[in-house]
């Protein structure tokens, strides 16, 4: 069918350009699928610009992947003559389309795109949230620095190569030229460093850019003096080189960061699964496998991971993660639900209309937390920088005093040389590169950190808090037994359909026991997290949950129980035998030797003795904890000065996770995306927690190692500098060597430590 369209429009080159053009059109869309695009107030949000002759808009087309896509899309006007032009931005997978409003409409254009296999992903969130304007000034500064550096270097060669005495006047001409070329570097390219150092000073502390700024200015002033008065060469090549390499490092850092956060690549995923319904059966499916056309099941309190159309259930969507608007919005069947919203009234089914966007989820993730750090570097880096600056000033002062008494002429050369050579550039580079590597290595092991500062908070942990149910217990392996009045099939179905609305591990477990009848849908479903759920079937009000929640009357055994009360009548309870994850208790005991451990549970204390035996005396065990209790506990730990790492199961421990210094959300096969955490990892990784923490600790070692090596260079250079005989050649050589070695060292040591992670 696509071919026919193409043939008609004489676009047959399409197939010659590529072996696998386009996307196969398995899915035929409902004819009125895009009817909503007839509405002006919707299209108004999409349109960038319009007048009576032209309408401009941009579409995100994730299916773009090859040159044939490019060809087809840029020749769109041959299929829809109303289109005037369309330009593809391949990397961003966007098409900028201009069409004539008197000949076609937004809806028609979208339908045309869909019919050839390039259905645009239209998310109002994507568009209304302004994409952050890429700040290009760093690239400009890099370009200017590179240009000046290259030419200054060329002008320095004659001196290194041994220019003749008789060409002395040429020599000074070269030096003056170098001076002029260094001006753009000092006055423009180095601005980011001055700005940062200045803002540090305004806040009364010396950050890492302070010594760099000093070095740049000192080098410049000394070189200026040398050329103008002393008829010597100056250090312009080292100066320009420092600025150039530092800027290059910054650009690299920013690009990596941007790519990690705004990545629109589908390769790597959070270990999150969503339930897909096929032929009335449920299949937990990993995110990448979710295809448009699938029907997914979203439970109460779960985040919708991908855009879809509501096909079943009553939807009350809370978009607070996305837009900050926490008032839930009611959605009707057939309406479009956007990714990022949280369902807050039972289970719903969605017909998926596009693939999941990992980058979008990452962005959501980072949006939620308040910024903990001002600068990108962890605290100890800034600490070292301050320390460094103090020492530097100390050395400089001592040197000045020394020379004052022995040979005053040497004061100036020595002091300025000290500042030139003692550049903590390595520290900055080491830090950014190391963070990048560690993040990458973690994600290769399916451990996802929100951003680089999390590495440091992991490292500083002093107290670990574990949630019990669903975290250290394996909710897929509960042994459940029913105690109470025998249940009829109808009752079982009702129970099942009620618990299916909830994503609590216990609900899930019960649900596995009894599958629901699809025609039974509870009304007025509500859930009190961690306590229980309730709903109504016609005249019956069902309560399922804890003892207190359900007000169950009767005796119950020790342990984890879920009670059922219908219209005040106590039916019975499900008894759960906990099964702990493999090795987890041993891991916790081992961790207990290094850290303080606490275990919080919403259950009663039936297992207390067992746990005490396993975990040792020092572990704090708290039972019957409500979510609020957990949160308070973490709060109190923090007030006592502990660095808390909380390991929980996401949605139910959301508050506590948020409050902890590091919140780790454990994902099971059927759990969901949790924006309030700092780390998302698979449950099976939990037994390796001690390795994870020690790996994070290594990050500091790597940075310190790099710093140590840089210090070595600095010491050598300082040896010459203090004597006042530092030659520009040595400075010029040491700088790039130290930079390159830092880059290589951070890479290799990070990788080496990373091997021990698994």
């Amino acid at each position, binding site marked *: 069918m696509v071919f026919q369209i193409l043939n008609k429009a004489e676009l047959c080159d399409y197939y010659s350009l590529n072996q696998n053009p386009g996307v196969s059109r398995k899915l035929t869309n409902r004819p009125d699928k895009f009817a909503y695009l007839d509405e002006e107030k919707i299209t108004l949000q999409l349109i960038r610009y319009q007048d009576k002759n032209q309408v*401009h808009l941009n579409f995100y087309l994730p299916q773009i992947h090859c*040159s044939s896509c490019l060809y087809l899309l840029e020749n769109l*006007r041959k299929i829809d003559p109303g289109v005037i032009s369309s330009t593809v931005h391949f990397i961003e997978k966007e098409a900028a389309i201009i069409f*004539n409003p008197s000949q076609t409409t937004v809806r028609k254009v979208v339908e045309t795109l869909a019919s050839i296999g390039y259905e645009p992903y239209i998310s109002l969130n994507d568009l209304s949230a302004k994409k952050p304007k890429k700040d290009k000034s760093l690239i400009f500064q890099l370009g200017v620095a590179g240009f000046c550096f290259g030419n200054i270097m060329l002008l320095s060669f*004659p001196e290194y190569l041994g220019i003749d005495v*008789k060409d002395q006047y040429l020599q000074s001409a070269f030096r003056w030229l170098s001076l002029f070329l260094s001006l*753009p570097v000092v*006055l423009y390219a180095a601005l980011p460093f001055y700005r940062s150092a200045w803002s540090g000073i305004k806040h009364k502390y010396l950050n890492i850019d302070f010594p760099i700024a000093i070095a740049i200015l000192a080098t410049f002033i000394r070189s200026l003096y040398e050329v103008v008065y002393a008829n010597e060469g100056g250090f312009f090549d080292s100066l320009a080189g420092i600025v150039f390499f530092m800027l290059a490092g910054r650009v690299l850092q920013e690009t990596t960061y941007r790519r990690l956060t705004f990545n629109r690549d589908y390769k790597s995923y959070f270990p999150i699964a969503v339930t897909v319904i096929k032929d009335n059966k449920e299949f937990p499916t990993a995110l990448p496998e979710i295809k448009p056309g699938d029907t997914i099941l979203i439970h109460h309190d779960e985040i919708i991971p991908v855009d879809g159309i509501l096909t079943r259930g009553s939807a009350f969507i809370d978009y607070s993660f996305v837009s900050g608007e926490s008032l839930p919005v009611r959605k009707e069947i057939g309406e479009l639900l956007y990714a990022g919203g949280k369902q807050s009234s039972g289970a719903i089914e969605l017909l998926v209309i596009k693939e999941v966007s990992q980058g979008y989820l990452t962005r959501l993730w980072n949006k939620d937390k308040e910024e903990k750090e001002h600068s990108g570097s962890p605290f100890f880096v800034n600490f070292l920088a301050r320390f460094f600056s103090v020492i530097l000033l100390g050395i400089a002062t001592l040197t000045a005093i020394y020379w004052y008494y022995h040979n005053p002429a040497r004061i100036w050369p020595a002091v300025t040389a000290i500042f030139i050579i003692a550049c903590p550039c390595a520290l900055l580079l080491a830090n950014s590169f190391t963070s990048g590597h560690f993040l990458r290595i973690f994600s290769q092991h399916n451990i996802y950190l929100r951003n680089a500062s999390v590495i440091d908070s992991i490292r500083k942990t002093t107290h670990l808090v574990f949630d019990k149910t669903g975290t250290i217990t394996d909710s897929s392996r509960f042994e459940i037994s029913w105690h109470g009045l025998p249940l009829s099939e109808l009752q079982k179905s009702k129970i099942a359909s009620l618990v299916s609305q909830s994503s609590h591990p216990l609900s899930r477990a019960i649900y596995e026991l009894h599958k629901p009848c699809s025609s039974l849908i509870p009304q007025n479903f509500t859930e009190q997290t961690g306590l229980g759920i309730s709903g109504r079937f016609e005249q019956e009000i069902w309560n399922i949950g804890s003892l207190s929640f359900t007000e169950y009357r009767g005796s119950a055994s020790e342990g984890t129980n879920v009670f059922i009360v219908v219209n005040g009548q106590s039916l019975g309870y499900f008894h759960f035998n906990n099964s702990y994850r493999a090795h987890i208790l041993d891991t916790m005991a081992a961790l207990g030797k290094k850290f303080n451990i606490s275990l919080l549970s919403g259950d009663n204390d039936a297992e207390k003795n067992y746990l005490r035996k396993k975990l040792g005396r020092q572990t704090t065990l708290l039972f019957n904890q409500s979510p609020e209790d957990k949160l308070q506990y973490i709060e109190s730990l923090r007030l006592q000065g502990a660095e808390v790492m909380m390991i929980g199961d996401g949605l139910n421990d959301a508050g506590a996770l948020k409050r902890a210094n590091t919140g780790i959300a454990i994902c099971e096969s059927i759990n969901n995306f949790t924006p309030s955490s700092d780390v998302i990892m698979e449950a099976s990784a939990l037994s390796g927690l001690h390795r994870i923490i020690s790996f994070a600790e290594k990050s500091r070692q790597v940075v310190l190692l790099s710093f140590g090596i840089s210090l070595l260079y600095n010491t050598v250079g300082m040896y010459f500098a203090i004597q006042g005989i530092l030659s520009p050649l040595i400075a010029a050589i040491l700088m790039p060597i130290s930079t390159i070695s830092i880059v290589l060292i951070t890479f290799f040591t990070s990788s080496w430590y990373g091997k021990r992670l698994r």
Partner: protein
Amino acid sequence: MTVEKFYYDNKIVKAFGMATVVFGVVGMLAGLWAAIQLYLPASSLNLPATTFGRLRPLHTNAIIFAFVGNASFAGIYYSLQRLCKARMYSDKLSWFHFWGWQIIIAAAAITLLWGKTTGKEYAELEWPIDVAITLVWVVFGINMLGTIIKRREKHLYVAIWFYLATWVTVAMLHIVNSIEIPVSFMKSYSWYAGVQDALVQWWYGHNAVAFFLTTPVLGLMYYFLPKAANRPIYSYRLSIIHFWALIFIYIWAGPHHLLYTALPDWAQSLGTVFSIMLIAPSWGGMLNGLFTLRGAWDKVREDPVLKFMVVAITCYGMATLEGPLLSLKNVSAIAHYTDWIVAHVHVGGLGWNGFMAFAILYYLVPKMWNTTLYSKKLATNHFWIGTIGIVLYAVPLYWAGFEQSLMWKSFTPEGQLRFQFMETVNNLIPMYISRSIGGALYLTGALMMVYNLAKTMAQGSFIANEAAEAAPLVKAVSPQKEYWHRVIERKPVTLLVLSLIVVAIGGLVEFMPTFLVKSNVPTISSVKPYTPLELQGRDIYVREGCYVCHSQMIRPFRDEVARYGEYSKAGEFVYDHPFQWGSKRTGPDLAREGGKYPDSWHYNHMYDPRSMSPGSIMPQYPWLLDNKLDTASTPAKIKAMITLGVPYEKDYANRANADLMEQAKTIEGNLKKDKIETDPDMEIIALIAYLQRLGKDIKGPAVTAQQ
């Protein structure tokens, strides 16, 4: 805003294409003829216009400016329009460019054969033609820039950057190197002298290679290779990086032509360093081109266009590896002045430039005539013949260069030079013959192409104006006019610094003449300006193109000092406008020729070289014996030299001819003693005076060298 319909101008492409073919054949014929003359000197037909010394510049100019130049214009006019999705800015300017260029070529052909030359390689054309070149070049630039401004495609494809770089840099190179003081309508003296002139010349010369023979053709490759193969370039990112790297580094490789010469050591080393750095960006371009064809080698088997391109790119890679290696001092010590360099040049010229031109013509003609190539088989045969031609050309010359150098440097156990110069020359004859066969094959292939293309044109119908349509550029919402003015203005410091640079350039240009003149104070006190007679003789030397076969620069090597005398010092050349160090020793070095032979030897030698040196391949110059010296030009020449700072006495111009006749009479007397009767005001007398002066300045015992 609607989709706009417009037409591409193919007529101008056709015009440039025709000129390419015509001048290609002419240039190759000139080259072939010159090559044959090397072993058959009589084939010059004994005419002044067709001696090797005048024919070689005709060949180089025809190939570089007429053949490659027109081919580049054809390719640029074709591709620029389509990359910009716009017709050329002005048809009038297009045609001005075309006719202007062809008139320049015609003028070049006439003047070069006539002996009107500046004596500087690849810049031989005299000053009026230089002015014309500047004018036409400016027009070309306006046309290109105008087209880019009115383009309908926002992105500037990398090829366009190459074209722009070519334009800017060639303009600068041409202007700086061509600064000369006119003496008469077709005669001028280079503003620079001696060592300075050498540096400027080879800064120009090498960058002419870079920016006239490489960058435009690279740009063309980036367009025509993907088009011919119907696949995108392997890595567009790489092409962007490779362009910017090339642009910033290329400027400094010039000094590698002057290794071991009197150029200061540090300047030579600078050239070497940058030449080595050049391997990276050059090979980036080559690999990008070749990898584009990965997985499409079956297409290469089928398509002659792609075959030509593959060999072209490979030759480019070879030449750009060999070049930097040749700029290593120890390699240069062997290769400089030999045929090795000629081989290197022709691998690049025949392989890269020639084959790319052929490929583009084979691609363009069928397209523009809306038909298919008349005979693919014929084109493929052309390809094979041409390739064999290149091999037969280059390989013997590599061997020749290497062997000759070794022979020059060879000593007997007693410490004498083993070989006379003549012996080394005779040794090369077979290689020269083979090389001319290679060249003839190459030319044959080109003629096959002419036939093939003519037949193709006949069977097709020319599309003078090719229809196209595209949407105009979106005017950006934010004000973007005068964009970078505002960027600069917003950053006052940058503006300040840039202004300083501009002012510095302006100032420098203004006071440069005096500045340079002052620096020409001789550092060797015994070096004196040329006498009027010697000056006239020198101009004859330049006119006849003697520097094409003879060098005047003895390098500080044992064998050269033994063979020619004391090695050359920079201070000896301070009055040489232009310098005549030469690049090739087809004949021996003449730096210390003065006093080696009696005047009569030179007289007879010029009349017929073989009478004095049996086995010589040098052409005969009998007309020097019969032509009267143009003494009327002497005052103007002296005046010009005085302006250039040569320390003649203030009003010497008027007295010069008197001194000239006096010296001429002395030489006449010498000749009479050897039984040769001649008038003193003949050209030969002047030439003899000049030759006898060479290298005499520091032969004297009390040399007060100050360096």
